[in-house]
């Protein structure tokens, strides 16, 4: 291993994964380039848009702001880890039927923020949904149908799936 590289071991979407990468490489780039998990997107590269959102040890993070070294030994969940055995997660199902996704580029991050919100607060009020998604920008929907999707998933017990 080159001196510039560090071995990182973590759990990604329930699987043990190891990479050898520069320690300051962004978690986003490690996910996209080294693990070929391209669900998380880069929208701004400065933590404003939230399209790179993933869950790290149960917290919602902007993976463009996380050096991979911080993810050593961590539990990470990305959008690819939401569906189980090809079955859409209740949130994905709600987004599909309520019109919560349009161009789809913010959707992976939005789904992770919504998953995180429901994990912490299974029955959020509309104000709590707004607050929970305020770090994720969507330019297509005006957010209305995203709120509706989250509320609909919550009403159907969408919080159950967060434990995976």
């Amino acid at each position, binding site marked *: 291993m080159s001196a510039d590289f560090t071995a990182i071991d973590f759990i990604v979407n329930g699987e043990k994964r190891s990479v050898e990468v520069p320690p300051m490489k962004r978690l986003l780039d490690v996910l996209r380039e080294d693990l070929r998990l391209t669900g998380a997107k880069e929208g701004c590269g400065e933590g404003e848009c939230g399209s790179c959102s993933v869950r790290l040890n149960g917290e919602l993070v902007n993976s463009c702001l996380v050096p991979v070294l911080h993810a050593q030994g961590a539990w990470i969940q990305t959008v690819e880890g939401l569906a189980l055995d090809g079955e859409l997660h209740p949130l994905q199902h709600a987004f599909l039927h309520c*019109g919560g996704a349009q161009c789809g580029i913010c959707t992976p991050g939005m789904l992770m923020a919504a998953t995180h919100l429901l994990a912490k607060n299974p029955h959020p009020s509309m104000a709590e949904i707004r607050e929970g998604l305020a770090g994720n920008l969507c330019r297509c*929907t005006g957010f209305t149908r995203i709120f509706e999707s989250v509320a609909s998933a919550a009403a159907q017990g969408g919080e159950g799936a967060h434990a995976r």
Partner: protein
Amino acid sequence: MSTHAKTRIVGVPLPRKEGVDKLLGRARYVDDIEREGMWFGATVRSTIPRGFIREIRFDRRIDWSEFAVVTAADIPGHNHIHLIFADQPCLADGQVNHCDEAIVLLAHRDKCRVREAVSAVQIEYEPLPAVLSIEESERQDVIVWGADNVLKSFLLEKGDVDAAWTSAAHIVEGEYRTGAQEHLYIENNGVIAEFNERDGVTVWGSLQCPYYVHKTLLAVFDLSEDKVRVIQTETGGAFGGKEDYPSTLASHAALLAMKSGHAVKMVYDRMEDLAATTKRHPSRVRHKTALDAHGKLLAMDIEIATDGGAYSTLSSTVLSRATLHSPGPYVCPNVRVRSHAWATNLVPYGAFRGFGAPQTIFAVERHMDEIAAAIGLEPVELRRRNFLHDGDRTATEQVMREPVILDKLLDRALKESGYHAKRAKFAKENRTSPVKRGMGIAAFYHGAGFTGSGERNLNSMAGVDVTAEGKVRVLVSSTEFGQGTNTVLTQVAAEAIGLEYDDVIMAPPDTSIVPNSGPTVASRTSMVVGKLIERASLQLVAMLRESVGLDEGFTRDEFFAACERHRTAKGEVRAHCRYEAPPNIFWDDQKYRGEAYPAYAWSVHVAQVAVDTVTYSADVEDFWAVQEAGRVLNPVLAGGQVEGGVAQGIGYALYEKVVLQGGRMANNQMTNYIMPTAEDVPPIHVYFEEIPFSHGGYGAKGIGELPHDGPAPAILNAIRDATGVSFTSIPLLPEDLFEKLATLENATEAAAV
């Protein structure tokens, strides 16, 4: 006929066609794609707004042999971006005309190395005087484009405006300004290009109009049509921002691919995308309006000036739409519109949802409230007295042959919003509350499809075919970037043929596979292309009846069996058709007279706004959007279009400011270019009235742009209602509110002492 018939699939809220891929994170956007041996491209850009390029120096500390380096001298064909005029170079050659203009292209196998190398290329300039505003361009002291800085001008005249002033009971004048607006699609511009002698150029990219890119590449590489292939990848938002710019970016990546011998990916980061790509045209609109004693419009004299930036790009067509929407949805016997798009040394402004209409609708709808105040009428009443109705003539003398139901839309908007009761309540509360609330309305139309003879000239073609696997495919170059193209066009085909939604798929948006159904712009996809798919689908069924005796009332299995019999007998199973203009459509391009648009969508917006006189923030608390856009093909998607457009319109009015310093965008980050977040967007209540339009796909008219036209005037009208103070310029930020309201408060206090 079909527009009034009961439908099974059209009008049903079926889930988005590509929705599952997007939700699972497996949809492939351009930056998710890798090609064998792929390199990465970067761009060296001008740092001054105008000047001669005297020398390009490459820092000797870098081993340039590892890089592919491209300048204008490497272009094998024509050094211009093909659009309306050929004035914009693909790469600056000898002179730059705006900041962030591309001069040198670099590619390297290492993404980080190529970014670092950009700053190691030094450009020596001999600066020239630059023009950085509409007013400077109008003065014509410095000529930066053509003979007079005028990229385009129009004169629209109806009746005799000058004769009307003397007989008027009231004359009201006003000036209104709108700022630039960034699309802020969450996916930045990006492409991948490959080049080889045998196949020519292949480009994958985030784009709206594959055939626009195709046409530019033909010219830049001087290749025949079969040697250029453009494939749209999943596109993460566009809003007009990926209408013309991808032609430039695709040319750049393809030049680097030719020079390097590798596939080359160029994906902009946010700062580069914000600084270097198109925005909405800034505008200044002046109104002088004559009315009779009853508040009926006698004359409208309108002057429009837009900032087009350094090259003509789409400024002429944006100005055309701005001109045609400037008189608003009103009847007026005398109208004159004089409009100019001015050249400046700024990044060329381009297409953005609404395409000139939001600018001039802001002006006319703000002006209507100023007129109402000046002549002592309620804003609602003034509009009602002047609305267009069936049979009336617009400013271009277009007779309204289709039903116009503005009164009904207004009634519904007032009822749903509780407009009158709320205004009365707020007027009482505002006397003592530091938070002033108000209600504002805007009424407007949006012409669907290309302007005037545009659709005839496009001569679009679309089709359907049937695959050996037993799927009907929709063959169009119309692209999906969130609006729902895939969903509504497959709904139309399934409906027309008599199949299920899942039986129909989209052919890949690849110029080597699909015909040119025109650009995906101008709210034309559901209406124009939808109609083509409806016709092609019916044609396919008719063909199968004739060729292999497909029976009436066929089942799904019988249909696909017939397709296979046809395939065996005749080869492919396919039907195509070309655009046919609705009858009685006449447009005079010289006099700007006639049927400006085949159809109009109509809307009334109501905004409830609270202005905090302590913090000077203005918040939209509630919003109602009532519209008639023909038949709604998919209620969930159509509702989403309206909500998204309203949210962008709220940003346009209150949040989004492009700050220029010395001709460069100074706030080219999401940190300081602010769009509305989940906490800023109010509840948006959406209501459709449906009147099927017989020349649109299953009765549809355009819906995509309409909702962006109304929020800004409705919000500023509400702020006037709340505070009694007129604001005439957007974006209207807290500091702007502070400046005017605090000055007025101080004056009031001083008077009291």
